[in-house]
């Protein structure tokens, strides 16, 4: 047992060098992070990134091959899942089909031997919390998808666990309901102040609900930061690519000075900021400049773009109308015909460029992050 109460803000969950190997496959490679109590953390990554494995290790369904998980100051490796105080909402919810909504919510209380007289009142209070008051008597299959979500949340929270785990429970919902439930999760989490770890592959969900985001890929933690920082200062090319729509312009590194770097692509010099200070590009090496689609401006002529550091001529290859924005693919001859994706959120006079139209694009050098290839 290790005690962490000495630290300034209490750490609810501490994952220390946790690794998981299945049949020689490293699902999780030496993951470490601390999560302060009351925070909402999202582990974001593509499928196969090890995010769900990490969550299940924390839940106690499997024991890590190496490392230690510490919850509220106690090492839990030797504690079986049913003795950990962790509530979980499963991907497919895993509600007990032979029980009513109220019986599902009461189940953790019964298993934890709570005073039977207080159980109905507690169950009702938590059904109210998830806005399902009066639905307790319904069978699970009589509830809609969104209502089932709410039962699963109530069941995970009713015994006031130290930690709430969410294993992509929103993945199967349609978009409207998913966005509604994201805000619900956020509301309930703030109301109860329960430390929460959410797993998802949905970058939007991660940005909307989280206090902190961990981006995982290939079993490794790529970055742990607040949502705005994760979005604006991605640690490496993977994070920059996974979150948001990002253009990568690769080229030779012309020069590096402090946090500034200059790339050369074809005849164009592209200045930018060093993206990963621990792994800075070196002059003479190959690197990529990452720039978000929304940081590139587009106009009919270069004059409208005066004031931007870099302005290039191009032609529209494709224009996709997405309602609140138009996504252009712009072919840039100066970049050897490379195509850049550009968002136009406020088309002046609602003008939409047609494919083939000649346009100018431009951006500021501080919006270009340079990563080693």
């Amino acid at each position, binding site marked *: 047992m290790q005690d962490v109460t000495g630290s300034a803000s209490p750490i609810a969950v501490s994952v220390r060098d946790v690794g998981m190997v299945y049949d020689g496959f490293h699902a999780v490679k030496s993951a470490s992070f601390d999560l302060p109590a009351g925070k909402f953390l999202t582990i974001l990554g593509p499928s196969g990134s090890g995010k769900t494995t990490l969550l299940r290790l924390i839940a106690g*369904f499997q024991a890590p091959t190496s490392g230690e998980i510490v919850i509220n100051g106690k090492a839990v490796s030797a504690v079986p*899942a*049913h003795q950990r105080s962790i509530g*979980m909402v*499963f*991907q497919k919810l*895993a509600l*007990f089909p032979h029980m009513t909504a109220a019986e599902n919510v009461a*189940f953790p209380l019964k*298993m934890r031997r709570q005073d039977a007289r207080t159980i109905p009142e507690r169950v009702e209070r938590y059904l109210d919390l998830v806005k399902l008051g009066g639905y307790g008597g319904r069978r699970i299959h009589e509830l809609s998808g969104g209502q089932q979500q709410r039962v699963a949340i109530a069941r995970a929270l009713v015994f006031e666990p130290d930690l709430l785990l969410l294993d992509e429970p929103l993945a199967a919902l349609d978009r409207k309901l998913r966005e509604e439930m994201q805000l619900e999760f956020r509301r309930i989490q703030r109301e109860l102040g329960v430390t929460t770890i959410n797993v998802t592959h949905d970058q939007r969900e991660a940005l909307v609900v989280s206090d902190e985001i961990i981006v995982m890929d290939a079993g490794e933690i790529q970055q742990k930061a607040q949502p705005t920082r994760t979005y604006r200062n991605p640690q490496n090319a993977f994070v920059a690519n996974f979150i948001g729509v990002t253009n990568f312009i690769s080229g030779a590194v012309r020069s590096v000075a402090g946090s500034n770097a200059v790339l050369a692509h074809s005849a164009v010099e592209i200045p930018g900021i060093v993206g990963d200070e621990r792994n800075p590009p070196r002059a003479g090496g190959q690197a990529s400049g990452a720039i978000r689609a929304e940081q590139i401006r587009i106009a009919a002529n270069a004059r409208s773009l005066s004031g931007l550091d870099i302005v290039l001529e191009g032609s529209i290859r494709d224009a996709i109308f997405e309602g609140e924005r138009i996504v252009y693919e712009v072919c840039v001859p100066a970049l050897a015909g490379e195509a850049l994706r550009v968002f136009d959120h406020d088309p002046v006079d609602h003008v939409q460029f047609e494919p083939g139209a000649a346009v100018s694009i431009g951006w500021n050098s501080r919006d270009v992050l340079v990563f080693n290839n």
Partner: protein
Amino acid sequence: MITSTSKSVILWGFVSIALIVLSAPTIVVLGSSLTAGNMITFPPEGLSLKWYAAILRATDLRDAFLRSVFVSAVCTIVAIPAGTFAGIALAKYAVRFEKAIQVYLLLPFTIPLIGSGIGLMLIFGNAGVLGQLWPVGIACCVINLPFMIWAVTASAASLDPDLELAAANCGAGPLQTFLYVTLPAVTPGIISGSLLMFILALNEFLVSLLLVDARIVTLPVQIYNSIRSIITPDLAAISVVFIACAVAAIFLLDRLVGLDIFLKSK
């Protein structure tokens, strides 16, 4: 339009033929049991329930029927725990020799019943329990157990594997998880399996024939013995009672768990 009409005519033609062929024996037996005459004939000569009254009075038929019910009960009571545990184990855990066990479960269709019947006769003979009724129940259970295991396996395999993890997450230990989550979730399979076992044991003829002696014949054997001397309409009537038992079981099954578990697991 014409082609789709003729297609549906042909389809319905086949369905009707299949239905007629399948139900013909039942209809013939039902018809001839209602005869007012003294011979088994179809169509019946007049209508009466007198042969049903006759089987009520015939103590040998009634006793044989009760013996069959006892045999079925023994079979079902043994099959429930054995089939449930085996079915859950096969569906949920990586059991050793799983392939071999699955092949073994196909045996009832491939090994002639007369073979396994003789084997069981030798075993029970050696144990000195021939001439009693309960070994017949055990024998029916041994022979039909794969059906029970199948029913439970079908139920258990469709379970979300996260269900047991969710139970653990709720604080339920392994035993509580089994009692409160796994077992209730496979109950439909257990119910349909047991009803199937009961009906199969009730109908079992060949194995009973080998294991019973003249004093303790079960109903199918009793009917068979009677046929060899004289065929009277009371045999048709008792056959109808048999069919009614099966229909009752199916009705019960539909009310308790619904028939889709069978329709899906075909």
